[in-house]
Protein backbone atom coordinates (compact mmCIF):
# COMPACT_ATOMS: atom_id res chain seq x y z
CA UNK A 1 0.00 0.00 0.00
CA UNK A 2 1.42 3.39 -0.99
CA UNK A 3 0.60 6.51 0.98
CA UNK A 4 0.90 9.96 -0.51
CA UNK A 5 -0.63 13.10 -1.90
CA UNK A 6 -2.13 12.78 -5.34
CA UNK A 7 -0.17 15.23 -7.45
CA UNK A 8 -0.84 14.59 -11.10
CA UNK A 9 -2.54 12.26 -13.53
CA UNK A 10 -1.66 11.45 -17.11
CA UNK A 11 -3.09 9.19 -19.76
CA UNK A 12 -1.96 5.99 -18.08
CA UNK A 13 0.02 6.97 -14.99
CA UNK A 14 -0.51 8.91 -11.75
CA UNK A 15 1.95 10.56 -9.41
CA UNK A 16 1.87 10.66 -5.63
CA UNK A 17 4.28 12.22 -3.15
CA UNK A 18 4.87 10.38 0.12
CA UNK A 19 6.80 13.12 1.89
CA UNK A 20 10.11 11.90 0.58
CA UNK A 21 9.70 10.44 -2.90
CA UNK A 22 7.61 10.96 -6.01
CA UNK A 23 6.02 7.65 -6.97
CA UNK A 24 4.84 7.10 -10.54
CA UNK A 25 2.19 4.38 -10.68
CA UNK A 26 0.70 3.04 -13.93
CA UNK A 27 -3.10 3.22 -13.71
CA UNK A 28 -3.44 -0.34 -14.90
CA UNK A 29 -1.94 -1.60 -11.63
CA UNK A 30 -4.13 0.47 -9.31
CA UNK A 31 -6.47 -1.95 -7.57
CA UNK A 32 -7.82 0.19 -4.76
CA UNK A 33 -7.56 3.75 -3.56
CA UNK A 34 -8.95 5.35 -0.46
CA UNK A 35 -8.58 8.61 1.34
CA UNK A 36 -5.93 8.39 4.03
CA UNK A 37 -7.51 9.60 7.23
CA UNK A 38 -5.33 7.47 9.49
CA UNK A 39 -1.96 9.15 9.15
CA UNK A 40 -1.11 12.78 9.88
CA UNK A 41 -1.21 14.79 6.64
CA UNK A 42 1.99 15.60 4.81
CA UNK A 43 2.80 18.86 3.11
CA UNK A 44 2.43 19.29 -0.63
CA UNK A 45 5.97 19.45 -2.02
CA UNK A 46 7.23 22.85 -3.01
CA UNK A 47 10.14 21.63 -5.11
CA UNK A 48 9.85 20.75 -8.78
CA UNK A 49 9.00 17.32 -10.07
CA UNK A 50 12.03 15.16 -10.70
CA UNK A 51 10.71 14.69 -14.24
CA UNK A 52 9.14 16.92 -16.85
CA UNK A 53 5.32 16.82 -16.71
CA UNK A 54 4.60 19.93 -18.67
CA UNK A 55 3.97 18.49 -22.09
CA UNK A 56 2.78 14.93 -21.65
CA UNK A 57 2.50 12.64 -18.71
CA UNK A 58 2.37 9.02 -19.73
CA UNK A 59 4.18 5.88 -18.78
CA UNK A 60 6.26 5.99 -21.93
CA UNK A 61 7.22 9.62 -21.38
CA UNK A 62 8.15 8.83 -17.78
CA UNK A 63 10.37 5.98 -18.92
CA UNK A 64 11.95 8.27 -21.50
CA UNK A 65 12.61 10.89 -18.85
CA UNK A 66 14.04 8.22 -16.57
CA UNK A 67 16.70 7.22 -19.10
CA UNK A 68 20.06 7.57 -17.44
CA UNK A 69 18.50 8.76 -14.16
CA UNK A 70 18.90 6.61 -11.07
CA UNK A 71 15.59 5.21 -9.99
CA UNK A 72 13.98 2.45 -8.02
CA UNK A 73 11.40 0.27 -9.72
CA UNK A 74 9.16 -2.54 -8.67
CA UNK A 75 8.21 -5.28 -11.06
CA UNK A 76 7.97 -8.46 -9.02
CA UNK A 77 5.73 -8.63 -6.00
CA UNK A 78 8.04 -8.11 -3.05
CA UNK A 79 11.33 -6.85 -4.41
CA UNK A 80 12.36 -3.53 -5.89
CA UNK A 81 15.38 -2.95 -8.10
CA UNK A 82 17.70 0.06 -8.18
CA UNK A 83 19.45 1.28 -11.30
CA UNK A 84 18.48 3.20 -14.42
CA UNK A 85 16.53 2.83 -17.65
CA UNK A 86 18.79 2.65 -20.69
CA UNK A 87 16.48 1.94 -23.64
CA UNK A 88 12.75 1.74 -24.34
CA UNK A 89 11.49 -0.58 -27.04
CA UNK A 90 7.99 -1.41 -28.30
CA UNK A 91 6.78 -3.46 -25.34
CA UNK A 92 9.73 -3.65 -22.99
CA UNK A 93 12.53 -1.55 -21.61
CA UNK A 94 16.12 -2.23 -20.67
CA UNK A 95 17.13 -1.49 -17.08
CA UNK A 96 20.67 -1.59 -15.74
CA UNK A 97 21.05 -2.70 -12.15
CA UNK A 98 24.42 -2.96 -10.43
CA UNK A 99 23.09 -6.16 -8.84
CA UNK A 100 21.42 -7.92 -11.79
CA UNK A 101 23.23 -6.07 -14.61
CA UNK A 102 21.22 -5.76 -17.84
CA UNK A 103 17.54 -6.57 -17.38
CA UNK A 104 14.71 -6.79 -19.91
CA UNK A 105 11.36 -5.78 -18.46
CA UNK A 106 7.96 -5.76 -20.22
CA UNK A 107 6.48 -2.29 -19.81
CA UNK A 108 3.12 -3.62 -18.66
CA UNK A 109 4.75 -5.32 -15.66
CA UNK A 110 6.20 -2.10 -14.21
CA UNK A 111 4.30 -1.53 -10.94
CA UNK A 112 5.89 1.74 -9.94
CA UNK A 113 8.94 3.91 -10.48
CA UNK A 114 10.60 6.27 -8.00
CA UNK A 115 13.25 8.59 -9.46
CA UNK A 116 16.10 9.44 -7.14
CA UNK A 117 15.72 13.06 -6.10
CA UNK A 118 19.19 13.46 -4.65
CA UNK A 119 22.59 12.99 -6.19
CA UNK A 120 22.93 9.69 -4.39
CA UNK A 121 23.91 6.62 -6.40
CA UNK A 122 22.55 3.13 -5.75
CA UNK A 123 24.56 1.48 -2.98
CA UNK A 124 26.74 4.62 -2.90
CA UNK A 125 28.73 3.26 -5.85
CA UNK A 126 31.00 5.56 -7.80
CA UNK A 127 29.45 6.99 -10.95
CA UNK A 128 32.05 5.47 -13.26
CA UNK A 129 30.90 1.98 -12.22
CA UNK A 130 27.75 2.51 -14.27
CA UNK A 131 28.22 1.88 -17.99
CA UNK A 132 26.68 4.28 -20.49
CA UNK A 133 25.71 1.51 -22.87
CA UNK A 134 25.61 -1.67 -20.84
CA UNK A 135 23.73 -3.92 -23.26
CA UNK A 136 26.05 -6.46 -24.82
CA UNK A 137 23.33 -7.75 -27.16
CA UNK A 138 21.65 -5.82 -29.92
CA UNK A 139 18.07 -5.03 -29.00
CA UNK A 140 15.03 -6.43 -30.78
CA UNK A 141 11.83 -4.42 -31.10
CA UNK A 142 9.75 -6.75 -28.96
CA UNK A 143 10.28 -8.68 -25.75
CA UNK A 144 9.61 -12.00 -27.46
CA UNK A 145 12.17 -11.34 -30.18
CA UNK A 146 14.70 -10.28 -27.55
CA UNK A 147 14.14 -13.53 -25.66
CA UNK A 148 14.86 -15.45 -28.86
CA UNK A 149 18.34 -13.95 -28.78
CA UNK A 150 18.91 -15.63 -25.42
CA UNK A 151 18.16 -19.17 -26.61
CA UNK A 152 20.95 -21.45 -25.43
CA UNK A 153 21.95 -19.14 -22.57
CA UNK A 154 21.34 -19.39 -18.85
CA UNK A 155 18.60 -16.93 -18.01
CA UNK A 156 16.89 -15.79 -14.85
CA UNK A 157 13.21 -14.85 -14.82
CA UNK A 158 11.54 -12.70 -12.17
CA UNK A 159 14.81 -12.11 -10.26
CA UNK A 160 15.26 -15.85 -9.70
CA UNK A 161 13.37 -16.14 -6.43
CA UNK A 162 11.87 -19.42 -7.67
CA UNK A 163 14.33 -22.14 -8.81
CA UNK A 164 11.95 -22.99 -11.67
CA UNK A 165 12.61 -19.53 -13.07
CA UNK A 166 16.34 -20.12 -13.56
CA UNK A 167 17.68 -22.28 -16.36
CA UNK A 168 18.84 -22.71 -19.89
CA UNK A 169 16.47 -21.13 -22.37
CA UNK A 170 15.75 -23.88 -24.88
CA UNK A 171 13.19 -22.23 -27.08
CA UNK A 172 9.97 -20.31 -27.51
CA UNK A 173 6.88 -22.17 -28.66
CA UNK A 174 4.03 -19.82 -29.37
CA UNK A 175 3.33 -18.09 -26.09
CA UNK A 176 5.42 -20.47 -24.00
CA UNK A 177 9.07 -20.28 -23.12
CA UNK A 178 10.89 -23.56 -22.51
CA UNK A 179 13.45 -23.58 -19.74
CA UNK A 180 15.66 -26.43 -18.50
CA UNK A 181 16.34 -26.10 -14.77
CA UNK A 182 19.53 -27.02 -12.93
CA UNK A 183 18.15 -30.52 -12.27
CA UNK A 184 17.23 -31.04 -15.89
CA UNK A 185 13.49 -30.47 -15.46
CA UNK A 186 11.72 -28.81 -18.35
CA UNK A 187 9.52 -25.89 -17.36
CA UNK A 188 7.25 -23.95 -19.66
CA UNK A 189 6.45 -20.37 -18.71
CA UNK A 190 3.85 -18.20 -20.39
CA UNK A 191 5.51 -15.23 -22.04
CA UNK A 192 2.95 -12.80 -20.62
CA UNK A 193 3.84 -13.83 -17.07
CA UNK A 194 7.54 -13.20 -17.30
CA UNK A 195 8.21 -9.98 -15.41
CA UNK A 196 11.96 -9.61 -15.72
CA UNK A 197 14.76 -11.34 -17.58
CA UNK A 198 18.44 -11.12 -16.90
CA UNK A 199 21.33 -13.43 -17.53
CA UNK A 200 24.77 -13.92 -16.02
CA UNK A 201 27.35 -12.13 -18.10
Amino acid at each position, binding site marked *: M*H*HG*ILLDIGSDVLVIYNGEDYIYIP*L*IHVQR*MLENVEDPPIAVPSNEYPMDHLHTLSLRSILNNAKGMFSEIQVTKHQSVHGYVTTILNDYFVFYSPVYKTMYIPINHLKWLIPYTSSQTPYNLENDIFPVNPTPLTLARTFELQLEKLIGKIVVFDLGTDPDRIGQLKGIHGSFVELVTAKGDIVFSHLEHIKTVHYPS
Partner: protein
Amino acid sequence: MDGISKTIPLVLVEWFYHASKSRLHLFFNLIKFQDSERGTRALRTLVFFNLQTYVMIEI
Protein backbone atom coordinates in the same frame (compact mmCIF):
# COMPACT_ATOMS: atom_id res chain seq x y z
CA MET B 1 -6.07 16.74 -18.20
CA ASP B 2 -7.74 18.76 -20.91
CA GLY B 3 -10.57 17.00 -22.60
CA ILE B 4 -11.57 14.68 -19.78
CA SER B 5 -15.11 16.00 -19.74
CA LYS B 6 -15.29 15.52 -23.49
CA THR B 7 -14.27 11.89 -23.43
CA ILE B 8 -16.26 10.72 -20.42
CA PRO B 9 -20.07 10.79 -20.24
CA LEU B 10 -21.19 13.82 -18.28
CA VAL B 11 -23.21 11.75 -15.85
CA LEU B 12 -20.11 9.79 -14.88
CA VAL B 13 -18.12 12.96 -14.36
CA GLU B 14 -20.89 14.40 -12.19
CA TRP B 15 -21.15 11.23 -10.15
CA PHE B 16 -17.44 11.20 -9.45
CA TYR B 17 -17.48 14.93 -8.74
CA HIS B 18 -20.17 14.58 -6.09
CA ALA B 19 -18.57 11.44 -4.72
CA SER B 20 -15.28 13.22 -4.31
CA LYS B 21 -16.95 16.29 -2.86
CA SER B 22 -18.60 14.28 -0.15
CA ARG B 23 -15.40 12.35 0.42
CA LEU B 24 -17.56 9.36 1.20
CA HIS B 25 -16.89 7.48 -1.97
CA LEU B 26 -13.26 8.09 -2.59
CA PHE B 27 -12.84 4.46 -1.70
CA PHE B 28 -13.46 2.42 -4.79
CA ASN B 29 -12.47 -0.83 -6.28
CA LEU B 30 -11.21 -1.11 -9.79
CA ILE B 31 -10.67 -4.84 -9.97
CA LYS B 32 -13.70 -5.33 -12.14
CA PHE B 33 -12.53 -2.51 -14.40
CA GLN B 34 -9.01 -3.82 -14.83
CA ASP B 35 -7.72 -3.60 -18.38
CA SER B 36 -10.80 -1.74 -19.51
CA GLU B 37 -10.72 1.65 -21.13
CA ARG B 38 -13.81 2.64 -19.15
CA GLY B 39 -12.11 1.80 -15.88
CA THR B 40 -9.03 3.80 -16.75
CA ARG B 41 -11.13 6.80 -17.76
CA ALA B 42 -13.16 6.57 -14.57
CA LEU B 43 -10.01 6.37 -12.47
CA ARG B 44 -8.49 9.36 -14.25
CA THR B 45 -11.60 11.40 -13.56
CA LEU B 46 -11.67 10.42 -9.91
CA VAL B 47 -8.02 11.27 -9.46
CA PHE B 48 -8.45 14.53 -11.33
CA PHE B 49 -11.12 15.69 -8.90
CA ASN B 50 -9.07 14.56 -5.92
CA LEU B 51 -5.69 16.06 -6.67
CA GLN B 52 -3.89 17.19 -3.51
CA THR B 53 -5.78 14.58 -1.49
CA TYR B 54 -3.83 12.34 0.85
CA VAL B 55 -4.56 8.80 -0.28
CA MET B 56 -3.59 5.19 0.12
CA ILE B 57 -3.17 3.17 -3.06
CA GLU B 58 -3.05 -0.58 -3.31
CA ILE B 59 -1.39 -2.03 -6.36
